[in-house]
């Protein structure tokens, strides 16, 4: 053989035993993907099937139970606590996602300005998002404490109120509190994602629109917003899914109380399924998240299909 390059085809044939498979596009593709597929079949698809089986049974922690068809689901829609939880979950999601959106986009626009210590500030505002959710929630729990609330101390000492509100024992206020804390935790994600989108907008677009006489607001609505929209929508869908299925914040602050005023689907399914031991009912409650999740997932999939060139 001469010293010239060996064509890949010839090489492939020569290494028929091992190299052939490591070089075979389809075989290698399956080999690399197989471990992931097996993991997800065994520990996502299978548990999902188990969940459906539970939801159709009257299983408890003590007793394996038997098949009861759709009884669990039918009972749920007669159950005031469940219906209230469903309503809470939608209020909780709508409330905190709107706050995340407003705060997040606002913060992204601010962080996109140049100022001193911008790196430090960017790292600081990320904190609520990166630390363990329930641990951050404990700080809020302490700030809402009936006897030692720092918020109330400030309200009283600044003369705004004579007596601070009972943050977590008043049903409406408690729902407001879990919404606020969820927004606190989720705002950094929204902000940093939108910021990344803002920074990928080429400066010439702004220059061009400035030459065309566009003012600040026009630039925002005709240049910034349309170009940030794809990132914004992705962050929005993820935020809705995460908030809709959130467990930690409600568990940490109120455990669903007072009088179920803050129960969301995840905490109620924990309460019914594991704490009270009615596994069938708990599994059914968590499965009722599915229709909403499917709508969001399908919407997100269709958006991705349209935007990527494959």
């Amino acid at each position: 053989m001469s010293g010239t390059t060996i064509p890949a085809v010839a090489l492939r044939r020569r290494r028929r035993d091992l190299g052939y498979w490591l070089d075979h596009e389809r075989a290698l593709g399956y080999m690399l993907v197989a471990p992931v597929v097996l993991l997800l079949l065994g520990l996502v698809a299978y548990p999902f099937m188990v969940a459906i089986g539970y939801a159709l049974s009257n299983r408890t922690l003590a007793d394996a139970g038997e098949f009861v068809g759709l009884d669990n689901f039918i009972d749920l829609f007669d159950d005031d606590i469940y219906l209230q939880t469903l309503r809470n979950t939608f209020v909780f999601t709508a409330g905190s996602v709107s706050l995340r959106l407003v705060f997040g986009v606002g913060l992204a626009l601010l962080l996109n300005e140049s100022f001193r210590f911008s790196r430090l500030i960017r790292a600081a505002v990320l904190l609520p998002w990166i630390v363990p959710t329930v641990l951050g929630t404990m700080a809020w729990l302490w700030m809402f404490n009936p006897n030692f609330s720092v918020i109330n101390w400030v309200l009283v000492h600044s003369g705004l109120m004579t007596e601070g509100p009972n943050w977590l024992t008043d049903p409406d206020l408690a729902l407001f509190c879990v919404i606020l804390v969820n927004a606190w935790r989720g705002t950094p994600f929204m902000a940093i994602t939108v910021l990344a989108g803002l920074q990928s907008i080429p400066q010439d677009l702004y220059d061009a629109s400035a030459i065309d006489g566009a003012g600040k607001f026009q630039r925002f609505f005709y240049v910034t917003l349309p170009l940030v929209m794809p990132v914004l929508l992705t962050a929005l869908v993820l935020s809705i899914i995460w908030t809709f299925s959130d467990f930690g914040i409600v568990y940490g602050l109120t455990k669903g109380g007072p009088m179920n005023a803050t129960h969301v689907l995840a905490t109620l399914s924990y309460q019914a399924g594991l704490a009270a031991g009615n596994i069938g009912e708990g599994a059914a409650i968590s499965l009722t998240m599915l229709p909403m999740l499917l709508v969001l997932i399908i919407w997100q999939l269709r958006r991705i299909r349209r935007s990527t060139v494959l």
Partner: protein
Amino acid sequence: MISGNPRMERWLFVYLPLAFALFFLVGPFYWMLITALKPDGELYDGASNPLYVATPSLEHFRYLFEHTAFVTWTKNTMMVATLSTIIALVMGVPAGYALARLRFVGSEFIGTAIFVTYLVPTSLLFIPMVEVMAQLHLDDSIWALVVVYPTFLVPFVTWLMSGYFRTIPTELEDCARIDGMTRLGAMWKIAIPLARPGILSAGIFAFTLSWNEFIYALTLVTASSERTIPVGVIVQLTRADFYFWGPLMAGALLGSVPVAIVYSFFVDQYASGLTAGAVKG
């Protein structure tokens, strides 16, 4: 902004709102720190000013180390987060590469399925997972978490990495293949080294996701010696209606510090990882 005074405008529309945002987002951590350093006498004294510490003390940290299993929880959390991150990268990076680069029947379907599992929340599956772990004889063991965390980490890493690999030009791999390298070799020696920034952000994400995970850690593990920090701190330091506020805040602070350090070093990496994955994914 009509005033036309640019300095004034900047204070009003940039610095002031930014100060409010920082107050809202970082304020609770100040409160956490203050509480952790305040001795009980001062903490529960209604007459003292709560906004600062008059006599800082480490008594709550001492309590945390001497009267709770905090050290064990830290070791557990570290072990679970490290192992599940390694598993997630070992499985997810090659799979991401395959989905981005290799053509095989069903690749699009598999990619979609993996993306869908990324969007499935953990609160949907924790009840059956208790049973599945019992079937694997991992009930009430820290190893249950090492096995379960990859179920949400791997789809995430795969999705992020397949987005990242798509942003790397294929030319270098093509050249290597013409020079006689196998496809596996081209992935291992060319593409993966080029993808190092993406792998680093995927690793950071995966590590923090497992460090912070709560619902599986709460439901799959009940022995105190097997707990992770978030669950240990909350279960051990809040009993019925009695809260050990000082040690609770000290534990929350210490449990947050490692991830905060990791992020402060990689904040730029974080943003670029997000764009690669979230935008082009």
